């Protein structure tokens, strides 16, 4: 169970505004990436974000490029989870692989506003906001295993050690 303060965005938040193409081929540490997170969408985000905050958005979050830094920079900024109506498949995979929990609230996120508090219970599959609970589907076990290992790198490392 986690609780965090909300940063709220709309539909189709694309990877270029999350992490600009001009930084994509620069070697950067996760901390440096965090300083550029959401730069072209919300210049106040990188400075204002606190560990444990939660990003909430509309449909198709993370559409566009395959760049994994879009997930890395959000995770490195201290964000505990991203809630969206839906995710692009590449962002979804990258987030899991970076150990960043993603929650799909297909019913909508319009009731949630910036600076609201939300709670996420991953075991029960619920998001609680202003006393109301909303359910989300559990991740497939193959996917959950990656997330529980802390991302794809530790997950594959573990699997390689077994063989």
């Amino acid at each position, binding site marked *: 169970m986690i609780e965090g303060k909300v940063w709220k965005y709309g539909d189709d938040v694309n990877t270029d*505004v999350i992490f600009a193409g001009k930084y*994509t081929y620069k070697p950067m540490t996760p901390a440096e990436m965090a300083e550029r997170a959401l730069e072209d969408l919300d210049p106040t985000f990188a400075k204002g974000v606190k560990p444990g905050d939660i990003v909430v958005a509309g449909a198709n979050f993370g559409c566009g490029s395959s760049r994994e830094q879009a997930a890395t920079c959000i995770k490195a900024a201290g964000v505990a989870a991203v809630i969206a109506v839906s995710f692009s498949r590449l962002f979804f995979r990258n987030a899991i692989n970076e150990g960043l929990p993603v929650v799909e609230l297909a019913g909508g996120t319009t009731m949630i506003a910036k600076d609201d508090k939300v709670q996420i219970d991953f075991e029960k599959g619920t998001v609680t906001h202003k006393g109301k609970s909303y359910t989300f589907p559990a991740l497939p076990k193959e996917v959950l295993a990656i997330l529980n290992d802390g991302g794809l790198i530790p997950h594959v490392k573990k699997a390689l050690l077994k063989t």
Partner: protein
Amino acid sequence: MGLTFAQKVLAKKAELSTVAVGQIVDVEPDFCLSHDNTAAIAKTFAKFGVEKVKNPERFVIVLDHTVPASTEEYAKGHKEIREFVAKQGIKAFYDGGVGICHQVLPEMGFALPGSLILGSDSHTTAYGALGAFSAGVGRSEMAALYATSRIWLKTPTSFKIEVRGKLKEPVTSKDLVLKIIGDIGADGALYKSVEYAGEAIEAMSLSSRLVLSNMAVEMGAKNGYCAPDKKTFAFLEHRAVAEYTPIYPDSDAEYERSLTYDASKLGPQVAKPHTVDNVAPVEEVEGTKIDQALLGTCTNGRLEDLRLAARYLEGKKIAKGVRMLVLPASQEVLLEALRGGLIEIFVRAGAMVLNPGCGPCLGAHQGVLAAGEVCISTANRNFQGRMGSNEAATYLASPATVAASAVAGVITDPRKVGRGGGA
């Protein structure tokens, strides 16, 4: 009930008799692609503690995003990649200048019907044009593929997009795919396998089909398939690196959604700033002043695109105050364009002809935009800030619309301007 292309190809790769929609399968791709991001992927791969890439013959690496290197950092990345491929014995390495990965893989015979190709680039969907199942993955996943050769994939539900009738010149597959994305939205086919079919698709060249499959990801799709046919097989005749077996969907396959278009009714389309699904007929934006015109990219940098654009540029001059950039998609395309006299047409018109590569499409180098500038481009994305300044704007269009607009200095309907005799 029959099976879709996605079900059939994933069942084959997972060595199962059938797979259900939603089923997660563990598969070994036939080929995996990475580009300039290989430098970062190699560093991640090193974290596994595995000395050697498993099955190096399955990896194709193409330098295209920042070539030739414009900064010391890019140059360092390229150098590390050259050292990595030499150490790992990766033979399918194409250094800067050979071309854009999504043109190089088909040309070099890696994009095969019925194959599974994954790439650490979102436009890996392109190879669906040759009947492959191809999709983008992230950098960590590519590193894991280096180590294990295996990956999980979820079997998607499928959309069928049937296009009847014939496209009317100078309307192209770019106009068609922009129209579809405008209609269904940037998430209209989220996580779906898109199958293009119908008379108009059958009549198209492979180059035109590559545009449809390339841009499938812009409607959120996992892949975008065109049925391989005689044109596909002829193209691959002296190129295919391996034997292949085409896979076709069953005629009674189940589709979540079917859409039908009439190609003959379609006019030129433009995606307005700052999303690919912000699509309008060209008439709506005619007269918009432009500062830059970009012809090229993995979407529209092929010979037929250059040929089409040249018809509007032959014997003309690019408008004063406008710069035009031409980036052929590969050396092969560049050579054919040279032989066909197209490069001379571009240069005489005042265009800058640049080396094959991704160029300014992603804003990393070679023609980025200043605040307040407007670009019309044959690329596949127009997100805010992508091509440079956050206060610049990009319109997406066909090679015909881009070339006609470069001459006029404003966004122009290519049907309304005179053309030279042309190549």
